[in-house]
Structures are given as C-alpha cells and as structure tokens.
C-alpha cells in the first residue's frame, strides 16, 4: 500500500514534467483548442465514476457515480467535438482560397 502511493507520486511528478515540456511547445495559435482538448482528456475521470456506479456498493455511491458519469461524458463528447471543429478551421494561406 505504502509502495503504491510512493510510485503514484513518482508517476505524478513525471507526468507533470512531460506535460510542461509537451505543452510548452504548443503554439499560442492553438491555446483555445489546447484547453478544450485537455478538458476532454481530463474527463477520463469518467472511468472512476463508471466503477463507482457499476459496483453499486451503496445507494449513495451509485447515485453520485451516475451523475458523475453524465457530467464527465458530456465533457468527453463535447470536448472532442469542439476541439475538432476548431482545428478544422485553421488553414494555412499556402494554396489560394476563394
């Protein structure tokens, strides 16, 4: 158990560093899509909610878990849709457009 927590801390630290290095390179042009994409990815919290609601260990847990799934799923779906919509709009001036 203690070992689990420690390795989790290491994972967190490494992921934070990777996040810094990767995201630092994102062009300011794409900061809005970046935020909506990380928001969609962050909604991976839905997996915790699914287990909570599905295991049905108590009624409270099942109810809260179910609401949590709704909230997170709407982020997953909405986040990916809008990120893709935004990115489709970004065009280079390379070929001449009407």
């Amino acid at each position: 158990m203690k070992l689990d927590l420690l390795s989790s801390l290491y994972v967190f630290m490494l992921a934070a560093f990777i996040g810094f290095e990767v995201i630092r390179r994102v062009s300011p042009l794409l900061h809005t899509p970046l935020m909506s994409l990380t928001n969609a990815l962050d909604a991976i919290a839905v997996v915790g909610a699914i287990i909570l609601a599905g295991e049905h260990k108590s009624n409270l847990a099942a109810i809260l878990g179910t609401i949590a799934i709704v909230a997170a799923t709407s982020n997953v779906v909405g986040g990916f849709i809008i990120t893709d919509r935004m990115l489709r709009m970004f065009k280079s001036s390379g070929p001449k457009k009407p």
Partner: protein
Amino acid sequence: MNNFAGADTLIEICYFIATALFILSLKWLSSPATARRGVLAGEVGMALAIGGTLLHHGIVDYKWLAIALVLGTIIGIPLGNVQMTAVPQRTALSHAFGALCVTLVGTAEFYLRAPDISPFMMTVLSMEVILGSLTFTGSLMAAGKLQEILPQRPITYKGQNFVNLGLLGSAVVVAGILVAHPEQMRLFPALIIVPLIFGVMLIIPIGGADMPTVISLLNSYAGLSAAAMGFVLNSKLLIIAGALDGSSGFILSVIMSKAMNRSFTNVLFGGFGQIQAAATGAKEARPVKSATPEEAASILSAANKVVIVPGYGMAVAQAQHKVRELYDALTKRGVEVTFGIHPVAGRMPGHMNVLLAEADIPYDKLLEMDNINGDLPQTDVALVIGANDVTNPAARTDASSPIYGMPILDVDKARTVMVIKRSMAAGFAGIDNPLYYLDHTLMLFGDAKNFVGNIVRELSGGDGHG
C-alpha cells in the same frame, strides 16, 4: 462477459495504451498541421479506457451506466456545437462539469471508506474534494459572467481577501481534522460546502479582462483535482491525465499573467481585479481626430503594410467575417495584411485566433505579440478593432498607470493608427488610453461590424490605388 479470465490484464493494457495516446495527443497538438491527428489519438485513447473499464469484474449494474453514458452524450453534443463566440463560456462550463464529477466521486469514496482512511488517503481525498468543489462553483460563476447572465463588472468590498483566505483556511483546517480523525464523519460536508462558497467569492471580484487568466487557473485546478482523484482510486491513468491537464492550465496561467504583468503569486492566490479601482478620474476632454469610412478606406488602400489588432470588441460585435472581407479587399490591392494578437486579447487564451480562423483567415497571418512588435515601426497603418488596454502606450511610459509594465502591442509606433471604437468611454479597466490623443491616431467611431463593412464597401466601390 465481465467474468472471463484475464479481464484485469486486458483492462490494464487498455489503460496503458490510452495513457500513451493521451501524451501523443498533446504532442501532436503543438502544430496546426498535426493537431487533428492529436484529437483522433485522444478519442481512441478515451474509447479504449472507457471500453476497458466496462469489462471491470466488479460491475454489476449496467443499466444505469448505459443511461448515464447516453445522457452525457446527449448533453455533450450541443456543448460541442456551440457558436465559436461562445467558446469561453463553454470552456468554463466544461471545467465545472469535470470538477463536479471529481467532487461527487470523492464524496462517494469518503462515505464508502470512512472511518477507515489512512492519513495520506484522507489528505489526497480532501484535496480532491476541496479543489473539485471550488472549481465547480468558480467555473459556473465564470461561465455566468461570460454569458452575461451575471454582471460582468467586478464586485469588490472591504476585507475581500480576508474573507476569501478565511474560507479557504477553514476548509484546510477541517481537512486537517479529518486527516487526524477520519471518524468525525459529520465534518465532511463542510469540506464541500465551504469550498463551494469560496469558489463563488473567488470569482465575484473578477472583471472580464481577467477572464483569460481565471479560466486557465480553473483549468489547472480541475486537472489537479482529477490527479488527486487518481491517487484516491490508485489509477495511474487518471493521475497522468490530471497532471497533464493541471500543467497545461498552469502554463497557460503563467503565460496569461506574464502578458498582464502580474506576479505569479498574484495569480495563485487569485488576487485579480485590483486594477479596476484606480484611475477613473482625471478625464478632461482632450481633442481627438476622427475619420469617416471613406477616409479610412483611402488611407488603407494607399498603405503597403497593414497590421490589424483585434480585441474583445471584435468578438462582441461579431465583426470577424467583415474583417475577413477587409483582409480580402486589401490583399487583392496588393496590401500586405497581418494580424497582431496579444496573448490576453479576448476572454480566454487563443480566443482571437479561433475567431479569425473561423472567418477563414489563414493562420500564418496571425502573429504573436513578440513577432509583430518589431514590424510595427515599418507599418503604414495599424488598425485596432475593439482592443484597448493591450495597445495602451501608458503601459510603457507612465509609471503611475495601473497597467504600467504590461507588455503591449506597440501600435503607436505605426505611421498611422486607426482605432475602431464605439465612443470615447474608457475601456473595461477604466483606464484612459493616451493612444487616442496622438497626432497620428484617427478614431473611427461606430460599431466594429458596421464600420469595417463600410470601409469594405468604399474599397470595392472606387478601384484605382489611392
């Protein structure tokens, strides 16, 4: 199907691949050329993770899962299809949803486990619930202000910081007691309610111009609360996704606060909105020069190099499509047109870029502040559309100005400056802008959309170079 051997291994493999795909997703987002591939990677990773989770052996009740997943999808589709001008409030709303999910899961986990909770577990659980609840109400408040359901003006009162710190402090104290005595279960609701109030109080003093920083900060909080949830559930996938989101929000907050010349502690402790109080007085009527659309059109068509500086006013007036027509009309006449984008122009990071991209303006014409400032002294016309503070030369020259030291777009160095503005009323921050009184500045009074439309009409009317 949830009982076959090896399901656990399969789930772990799904999570492992999903994690890698999430990191790749953000990596590919770094340039517009590969960005859509990044979204695809994120989607595949998400599908794998959710699909894998559904195999979990402990799941006994699929009916409600299905209902919840479908309901979430039904809500998510319209949220993904909002107008581009509504993106800031949509983003704030999605931070609220993410935080809601985290808070609810944290609450359920507490009541499932209490009173048998180790101090470390209780610490991360408290962090999860505190960050989650304050992000939930804070983001709802931000969304309300952006949607203009709530008054956009900052509301400040005496002792505001004291009240806020007191609220946050008492939440931390309650958390401390619960860490030492997890059997004191009746204290737990305070761990939710106090931060919920704190979230509201935190956003009350925030004005519109501070929104880019605030949204980034709430983004960071949402990510950190998800990472804390990962610790509680011992899910590496969640820890990593939360850490990525947290660091993304953190980086954006730092960029935004630098662009507004705020110190980092100022951001961390939510010390926004103080600027507004100062500098509303001393507004004697100084003479300004104004021009008509015809005059503006002839000056623009005589130029070789034009830099357009958009701000929130362009978004409010929905003028981006007219700006595109202006861009076309000038480009056709051989005028070189680029856009100068300040990091905090608009209401969220990258807001202007998205609106201009929506209007089909090529992204290689959208230049960052640092790249355009060197060009401005050789620019014939700088056309400011609905931007104010980010062009205020007082930030460079007047040490008594509340925005002194803030990096700005040096539009005053262009040969001619034209500013489209509704009236001479001071901007959102209530700070007078000396730019408007310069000898080579022309004020174009009117609604941004109409005015740009009129300039375009003039340009397409007379054809010869001016």
